[in-house]
């Protein structure tokens, strides 16, 4: 573009106009909206306007930059002055009057009236917002008055033509006229196709009223001459002038009519809207689209399949490429079908394109299905509040515009929220899986391949509580050990539970009873149990599923025996598994915990209650086993007392929990090999490290379970331990029959347990034998050494 030199007045004038047109303050005015209205108001022939736009480069750029706008205004002035439009005329024409723009509310109203009068026949579908056409007479009058304002040679021609406009304007043609009448940036090619306006849009204009509405909408939409706001401009005669300005042709007349109707519609829209969004769909337009949609798809909530839409839009004679692009823009959800909103957006884009608007690169906000969708709120998941906006015509425009950005924002938000929902659901499902895991643990308990402590619960708080519980009971737990204790206790609990259930052995009972005595309060036991469970749950991820969740037990703490049986049945495996897992954990613990063990036991026993040497896990089984425990308590008491005495001798400090857990677990889990291994392992290191400490754990289990074990205690720890285990197992077995008879499940579980016990015992046997051999060898070596030393003593 050439450099544009403007006088001061021109500069000011142009800047005012630019700011007026630059609604969104983007420093560039779109090639539609107010700019078009402005140019329309310039009362220039349509082709002149197009020429101006081309010259100023707006068509090239697609929008009006400030310079383009100024140039355009200058050219308008040039044209209005009657000078030929040339690029060089911008600066050559001197003393150019300021471009005159016809703009006034009155004018617009009159224009509306004129348009209405002309369109009265075709505007049946207009909503009540638009004032009824006053009649053509007014139009004529307006036109006459307008003539005085502008030197319009064609005015007269158009004037008489204008009344003819309406009849000639068939709805089908309106779109074409609109297209022609709007600036066509692409160089006026739209005008050529306009030669056959009728046929094309005939399919669209099935409803004349609808089409006329569309017409009005179009004209109102695309280059709406919003002139009511241009009060600054000299008042010009009424719309008729504008109408008459356009070239005398049917198309022009229709254009005029459409412009007038557009102004009417626009005015209405404008009055309500704060700013003009070129892509906004007015109500009339929307109604038209909806009607068209209905012709294809009666169900407004349904979809238009791609093929049908393709046929429909192919009628618009747009290039396939453009149609393809329109489809891309409008098919928001990429499903190959058009919802009502998508269809309206596509239709809107088609009309816009036909009228010369370049297709946007991305869907304008106003065309977003979400925003536009009012009827099909379900389809696009519109936000209800904002969706309802377009429902009310008067409120639609203003509500739409402000709501659009928010809707757009909410769109991603919704997506995000949906994502969040998805993730949330995933999380919930994962949590469910966790819970399921726990529940699965119960049935899978028979598996004895567990070597690790059974993780039952994973609540750290519970663990803490458990520890508190343990501390409460007087055990000297160290934090690190408590978890272990918990583990073992879990195992022991489980083993206890299982054994109590299955075996109902006195030994096991002893263990239980001891555990019971540990905390006379069943609640505490339950808590401990749960704590331990939770702890075990946390600690071991490695534990196999088999261990059934002792969890249910706390709930059954005071339940009836039946419940307990169920629980036992469920948890037997758990116990076993737990017991199995227990042994491995036992070894390290017993050493430090041995000392406190007896101490704890002693006081506990002193209470007369069965000390709950084992950690709370034992308590868990105890709770459900209350009924059973009561029977066992007697035994346990006796055993415990004996044990305690022995324990007192043997180990100064043994963590009661550990001990309890160990013996309990050993007793109960006797079946599991791992447990035995643990014991052996524990016993071996125990022997190595401490002479007495190892005895603590072993003695406990031994003591608890069998009186005979006490005898064994003095012997090698491992042996005692093992024997204790064996004894426990053996002892537990006899007790099996008691609980077995109650439930079928218990029977089955007991059978399983027996089998497991058998295997465990077999292994235990072999291991014990090996240990025995080792110990014997050590003994022999020691004796040899002793003998070697003796001679010296003799000497």
């Amino acid at each position, binding site marked *: 573009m050439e450099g544009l030199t403007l006088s001061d007045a021109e500069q000011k004038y142009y800047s005012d106009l630019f700011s007026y047109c630059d609604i969104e303050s983007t420093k560039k005015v779109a090639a539609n909206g107010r700019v078009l209205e402005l140019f329309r108001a310039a009362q220039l022939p349509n082709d002149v306007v197009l020429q101006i736009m081309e010259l100023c480069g707006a068509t090239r750029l697609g929008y009006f930059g400030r310079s383009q706008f100024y140039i355009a205004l200058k050219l308008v002035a040039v044209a209005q002055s009657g000078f030929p439009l040339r690029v060089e005329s911008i600066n050559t024409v001197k003393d150019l009057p300021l471009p005159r723009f016809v703009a006034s509310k009155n004018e617009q109203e009159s224009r509306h009236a004129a348009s209405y009068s002309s369109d009265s026949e075709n505007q049946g579908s207009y909503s009540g917002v638009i004032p009824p056409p006053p009649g053509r007479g007014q139009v004529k009058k307006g036109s006459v008055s307008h003539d005085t304002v502008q030197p319009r040679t064609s005015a007269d021609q158009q004037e008489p033509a204008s009344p003819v406009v309406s009849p000639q304007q068939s709805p089908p043609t309106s779109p074409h006229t609109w297209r022609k009448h709007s600036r066509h940036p692409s160089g006026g090619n739209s005008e050529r196709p306009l030669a056959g306006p009728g046929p094309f849009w005939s399919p669209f204009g099935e409803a004349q009223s609808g089409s006329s509405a569309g017409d009005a909408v179009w004209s109102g939409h695309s280059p709406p001459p919003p002139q009511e706001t241009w009060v600054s401009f000299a008042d010009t005669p009424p719309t008729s002038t504008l109408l008459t300005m356009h070239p005398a042709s049917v198309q022009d007349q229709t254009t005029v009519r459409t412009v007038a109707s557009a102004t009417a519609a626009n005015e209405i829209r404008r009055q309500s809207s704060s700013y003009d969004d070129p892509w906004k769909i007015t109500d009339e337009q929307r109604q038209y689209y909806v009607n068209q949609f209905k012709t294809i798809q009666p169900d407004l909530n349904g979809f238009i*399949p*791609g*093929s049908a*839409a*393709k046929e429909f*839009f*192919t009628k618009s004679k747009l290039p*396939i*490429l453009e*149609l*393809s*692009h329109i*489809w*891309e823009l409008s*098919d928001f959800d*990429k*499903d*190959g079908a058009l919802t009502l909103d998508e269809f309206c957006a596509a239709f809107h884009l088609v009309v816009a394109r036909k009228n010369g608007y370049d297709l946007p*690169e991305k869907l304008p906000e106003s065309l977003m299905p979400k925003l536009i969708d009012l009827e099909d709120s379900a389809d696009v998941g519109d936000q209800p509040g904002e969706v309802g906006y377009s429902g009310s015509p008067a409120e639609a425009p203003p509500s739409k515009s402000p709501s659009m950005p928010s809707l757009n924002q909410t769109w991603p938000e919704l997506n995000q929220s949906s994502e969040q929902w998805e993730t949330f659901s995933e999380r919930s499902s994962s949590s469910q899986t966790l819970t399921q895991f726990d529940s699965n643990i119960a049935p899978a308990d028979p598996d004895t391949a567990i070597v690790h402590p059974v993780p039952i619960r994973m609540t750290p708080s519970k663990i803490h509580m458990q520890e508190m519980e343990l501390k409460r009971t007087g055990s000297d737990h160290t934090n690190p050990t408590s978890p272990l204790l918990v583990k073992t206790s879990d195992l022991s609990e489980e083993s206890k539970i299982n054994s109590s259930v299955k075996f109902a052995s006195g030994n096991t009972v002893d263990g239980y009873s001891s555990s019971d005595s540990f905390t006379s309060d069943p609640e505490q036991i339950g808590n401990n149990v749960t704590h331990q469970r939770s702890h075990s749950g946390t600690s071991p991820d490695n534990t196999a599923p088999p261990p059934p969740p002792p969890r249910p037990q706390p709930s059954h703490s005071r339940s009836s025996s039946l419940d307990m049986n169920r629980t036992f049945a469920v948890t037997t495996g758990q116990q076993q598994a737990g017991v199995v897992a227990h042994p491995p954990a036992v070894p390290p613990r017993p050493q430090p915990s041995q000392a406190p063990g007896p101490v704890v036991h002693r006081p506990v026993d002193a209470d007369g209650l069965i000390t709950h040497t084992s950690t709370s896990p034992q308590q868990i089984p105890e709770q459900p086993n209350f009924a059973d425990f009561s029977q066992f308590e007697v035994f346990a008491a006796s055993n415990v007392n004996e044990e305690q005495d022995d324990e007192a001798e043997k180990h100064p400090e043994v963590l009661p929990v550990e001990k309890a857990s160990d013996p309990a677990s050993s007793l109960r889990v006797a079946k599991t090999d791992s447990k035995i291994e643990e014991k052996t392992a524990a016993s071996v290191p125990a022997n190595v490290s401490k002479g007495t400490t190892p005895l603590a754990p072993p003695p406990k289990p031994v003591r608890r379970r069998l009186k005979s074990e006490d005898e064994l205690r003095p012997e090698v720890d491992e042996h005692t331990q093992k024997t204790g285990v064996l004894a426990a197992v053996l002892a537990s077995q006899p007790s099996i029959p008691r609980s077995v008879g109650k439930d079928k499940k218990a029977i089955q579980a007991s059978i399983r347990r027996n089998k497991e016990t058998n295997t465990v015992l077999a292994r235990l046997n072999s291991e014990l034998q090996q240990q025995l051999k080792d110990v014997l060898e050590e003994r022999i070596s020691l004796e040899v050494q002793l003998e070697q030393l003796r001679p010296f003593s003799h000497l």
Partner: protein
Amino acid sequence: MVHTSLDVVDEKISAMGKALVDQRELYLGLLYPTEDYKVYGYVTNSKVKFVMVVDSSNTALRDNEIRSMFRKLHNSYTDVMCNPFYNPGDRIHSRAFDSMVTSMMIQVC
């Protein structure tokens, strides 16, 4: 070169008659002595083949990158196909598709 790789693609397709689910093929072996480029093939369930030629001078793209690129390509292609105005076989004029592809290539290079 592309035609040659297409032949290889067909060859591979016929070979994997059993595992139709396999969507990914990497032709790292297609390195001619002179031309140092790699050709990646990708077949969709509808037997639409994507061939990607990558210049080896660029630090060899990781397998995952190639796969993600193919996935994106596949998604964009399905979006394009959804357009009823698009005739399979035509040149794709979709701007979104082009922009996606361009962005992908820019990201890689």
